[in-house]
């Protein structure tokens, strides 16, 4: 089977994150990702898109977010690309997570953010709330995705998540 890609480009609005999740789950299912893993794909793609939408709304609301869903022979990968300017600390954390893998790096950080966060204002919003969601988002992505790649280019940050496709030899139809 050839490698195929579905690309979704959407305006940076929270409502469209749901659309991206639905499309990702549908393409993943078609690619042969196991049912039990579909939830993880849906959640990880949602987190990556939420992150991109949030950055775009703050820095470049007119620019679209791009999601490329690639069905390879042995793996399914999703690349979420933002066009926001470089985000120092958060990107470094992402890079570290991609290298080291696992959520162990972030778990203590999450607990610290929860404890340190100050009281909310009257409207119920705090900067800490946003920082907390950011930290939790990174924790969820790193906890769900074993194969995570983060690359910064001139146009933006690409976050690539890959899941293996378990294709037993016997299940591949014989060529006639």
């Amino acid at each position, binding site marked *: 089977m050839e490698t195929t890609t579905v690309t979704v480009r959407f305006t940076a609005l*929270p409502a469209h994150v749901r659309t991206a999740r639905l499309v990702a789950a549908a393409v993943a299912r078609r690619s042969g990702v196991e049912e039990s893993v579909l939830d993880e794909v*849906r959640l990880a793609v*949602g987190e990556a898109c*939420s992150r991109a*939408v949030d950055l775009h709304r703050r820095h470049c609301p007119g620019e679209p977010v791009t999601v490329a869903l690639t069905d390879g022979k042995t793996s399914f990968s999703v690349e979420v690309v933002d066009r926001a300017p470089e985000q120092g600390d958060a990107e470094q954390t992402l890079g570290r997570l991609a290298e080291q893998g696992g959520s162990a790096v972030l*778990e203590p950080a999450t607990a610290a953010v929860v404890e340190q966060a100050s009281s909310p204002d009257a409207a119920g919003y705090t900067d800490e709330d946003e920082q*907390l969601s950011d930290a939790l988002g990174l924790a*969820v992505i790193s*906890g*769900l995705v074993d194969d995570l790649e983060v690359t910064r280019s001139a146009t933006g940050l690409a976050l690539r998540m890959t899941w293996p496709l378990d294709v037993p030899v016997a299940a591949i139809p014989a060529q006639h």
Partner: protein
Amino acid sequence: MDLSLSTRPEGDKTVVEVGGEIDVYTAPRLREQLVDLVADGKYHLVVDMERVDFLDSTGLGVLVGGLKRVRAHDGSLRLVCTQERILKIFRITGLTKVFPIHESVEDALAATD
């Protein structure tokens, strides 16, 4: 599926029943509900998540925000959740150590610190 929200008093506690998807799009409504309850003097909350289909980090952030708010009034926020896919998200983020998570609303209502 969209977010559904309903609240009911149970003794000195308030049960918040949440259903559907708690994500970047719907979480602000949950935040508003929790803020309103606390403003109303309801400091002991039980959030029943048994009918939640999807939860992301924005939703988690809102729940943590709610916890901080009730704690500021010596209150409590307990979660009811038995769905493995939702529990997994609390485990990954280390939040199982932050929230008391119960198997039923009855358990959560009966619990004391």
